[in-house]
């Protein structure tokens, strides 16, 4: 299997490490919604067909990629940066140092 890293180009799967289901959304850090946290920490999709996954290019640039892969055929239909995929709720209640 080849994954095309947006930085490094097509690389063998052995350069990557799987970082899990890419469909999860991390609740707001201050949230006490136990169900939402439980879903984030434990629930994983395991579809037959297209799946969104996070892969880290750990043997390369170490970027985390959001990969859309067909679990039946291994065909990868898209690769992007995981950071652009919105796996989080906004942390609006806290300012970042850059803004402070």
């Amino acid at each position, binding site marked *: *299997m080849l994954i095309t890293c947006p930085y490094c180009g097509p690389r063998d799967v052995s350069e990557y490490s799987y970082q899990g289901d890419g469909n999860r959304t991390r609740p707001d850090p201050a949230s006490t919604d136990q169900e939402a946290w439980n879903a984030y920490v434990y629930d994983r999709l395991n579809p037959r067909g297209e799946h969104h996954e996070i892969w880290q290019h750990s043997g390369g640039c170490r970027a985390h990629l959001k990969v859309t892969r067909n679990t039946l055929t291994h065909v990868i239909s898209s690769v992007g940066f995981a*950071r652009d995929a919105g796996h989080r709720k906004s942390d609006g209640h806290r300012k970042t140092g850059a803004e402070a």
Partner: protein
Amino acid sequence: MSPRRAVSGGRIDRLRTIRFTFDGHSYTGHAGDTLASALLANGVTLFGRSFKYHRPRGVLTAGVEEPNALVTVLSGAVREPNIPATMLEVYDGLIAESQNRFPSLEYDVGAINQLGGKLLGAGFYYKTFMGPVIGPLKGTRFWMFCEHFIRRAAGLGRAGTEREPSRYERMNAFCDVLVVGAGPAGLMAAKAAADKGVRVILADLDANPGGSANWSDETIDGMAAADWAAETVRELKARENVRMLPRTTVWGYYDNNTLAALERVADHKLAPAKGEPRHRQWTIRTGAVVLATGALERPLVFPGNDRPGVMLASAVERYVNQYGVLPGRKFAIFTNNDSAYRAALALKKAGGEIAAIVDLREKISPAAREIAGKVGGAHHTGHAVIDTEGGKQLTGIKVQRFDDRTGVLSDDPRNIPADCLLISGGWSPTIHLASQAGLNPVWSDELQAFLPPQATQNWVGAGGFNGGFTTAGALAEGHAAGLKAAGAPAAAIELPAVDDDGLDPKPAPVLEIKAKGKAFVDHQHDVTADDVRLAHQEGFVSVEHLKRYTTLGMATDQGKSSNVPGLAIMADALGKQIPEVGTTRFRPPFAPVSVGSLAAERYGDIRPDRLTPMHDWHLENGATMYGAGLWHRPMIYALPGETVEQAYVRETKTVREGVGLVDVSTLGKIAVQGPDAGEFLDRVYTNMFSTLAVGKARYGLMLREDGLVLDDGTTWRLGQHDFLMTTTTANAGKVMQHLEYLLDVVWPELKVQLTSVTDQWAGAAIAGPKSRDVLAACLTGTKADNETLPFMGIVRGEIDGAPVMICRLSFSGELAYEVYCGAGHGTHVWEALMKAGKPFGIVPYGLEALGTMRIEKGHVTGAEIDGRTTARDLHLDWMLSKKKPFVGSAMMDREGLVGEGRLQLVGIVPLNNRPVNGGAHIVEELYEDGPRDSIGHVTAMCYSPTLGKYIALALVKDGKSRRGTRAFVSDPLRKRFGPVEIVSHHFYDPEGNRMHG
């Protein structure tokens, strides 16, 4: 002259004689022979005994699909079993043995199994090995005792026990077009692609590329087909953009057009040449693939079809034309199609006598009829062979009138004497690789065969693979496929001329003659037509179940010749058509792959070694090293005659009373830098770091998202935007990946950069009441007094000219400092500290003393942070900030992680003052009837020189409330039981006065 070698002909080098032995007898062959062809030339027809019934078996085929003639090759004490004699090139000094016979091939006691045929039918294993269900042996392991002997009788070759000394290699290759198979189609494809200037690899499993051109009697382009092939190969070899891989089996087709191939580099010689591996495993990434893998001829199924002397027609044609061998004296032919007539012609030309051609079709093509007339002998159309005669060698066949539409036999059988019977059940395209990179194969009624599936990867087929069985067609398709694979537009050229013999490859749809006797479908696994029918009677209707129950197609040949006949019999039993019954997918590997070639250089201990900068010093100064993950760390620095316990007790005492030095370079170190570094640390640690003053360090605790403890360590604030985080040695990589994920995926807006700097810093911890004096004696540029360097303070200075960074923190519980310097200065600074410490009696100390002091202090490490403990379990809840959310904060207080019944950290004192072991259980009572009701376990143990007794840390259910009570240690594995007292985990200096002093 060997008895069965034709006077002339063949592609062997008759001037070169090869000497080899088979079953202890010496034989000769010629360069270019396989073991099969050389033995046949010597008149040998018995090659082995069959798997289950120990029936005598000869050689059925001439290629990779051989199910019968499997031999063991001996090289010194190394035995390699199950090598097809048809694929083994002879060389001087080759020693081969037949298999599955005792005491000898000629007289095999296992042959008695033939009498028990009914007992050994399909599912024999499942039905038999259930153990006695009645009688005195019921419920015993009697059958397991029997199985030992039955297993010995079954099976094929025997593997050796010696270490295999051969060297194997792995190779990666990249090309635009990979052509699999170098027959006429493959050669044309390679040529067409190479002409377009793309990078081409041409792989073929035989030693001499050419495929069927090497054994067909045709002419191509006005020359013998084999000469045309040799000429084309010469031409291709001369090109820079073509790589030829002979003796290379492409065995797997994987994602992204990645193919696996095994090159047998040196199996055709006594020993590999200098620098040569035995096998080379290729991983080939290619733009496109041309599958020109040809087709395999199928046997017909009829009683006695496994007798030595019964061979595929194409195999005999190959033995005659390629090897100049006549595998018999008097030949009979039994076929359901025209292709076998070519073999008859070849035999006639080479001087063989044709006794009869038995064709189960009533109507045959004029071309076939003409050949039958030319070669002589009887020609029985509308007839079938219903049995064979002879013992270990065919002596004759029994023939009866046969209706190819109804399958009914009639009239009286007649006997025809023959010592070699050629059989042909039509051809199956070799679609194995396509099946790994395509949808389901497509059944062709016309060819009675599965044709290649629709491709799911970028390959294109040509020649026999596509179901076209003429050489002219192969050349045309090969040319077109080569162009297509190279991305070039189709273009007509003048193709090499081939003479057309007008034979029709379409078979009659009959693969089995139903008559009395054992008719073999899978020769290698001894599966008969009756076994398949029995499986059907017993309710196995799916091909997948049929395959597993009868083991049809599950031997090392993977059913190359038995698949379609097996399906035909199954379909007949079900009253269905073959495509309705379906076929099983062909999985990799296409042919057996040596395990050595998959491992190649990766065997033995292949982990990298991680050495600290002071490693050599430790070795030179008597350290006993200890593996900690990939790291090598000093365990003790024993004096002559000291035991491990004596050494660590001495080292611990010296630290507690004087001063000692330990290498802490292995701690994970991560530079956390950037304007949001403080904020980031607040989010990942349970306690606050944004408020930490520059020049100070703080102990931090990290949780996982699920609220359990991940890791601990100190983090130093070196500047406003510059932190140095330390992690435990074992978790350095895990913590780095955890932080990177959060930063990259969850909080990409934070301006933080993470850099692993573990290997950039050397670290030494100097500990003990006299440590400050030692520092004062060697530190320049700053001071080590309490005011300049308070507890958890950081200073920068120099030691013997090398810049250092010192943080006053303590793992041992004593006044202590961690001295960090660039890795290149590690040994220099270490030696300077040892020199400065000499007047104070400094000693180096190892992991054992370090561990002893941490147990005395009750500090946790990986044994307690085991992925199941919470901060509260480890009494670290004081570190859980209530002012902010952090990773794990939302989940750490959920049900099950709080309240009663948690395993909590405690101290343990064995009351009999005897050592206990890590992993030993803690119980409330020792029961007579065996150990049970564990309330926890010991995580770490030592002899404490400070307390003068054995102590341990343990995780015990509701441990905090049990302090001051008694329990027992229960260690049935090591047979250690005894009373213990449960105490606080702070054994020593609980207030921390010593390190603050």
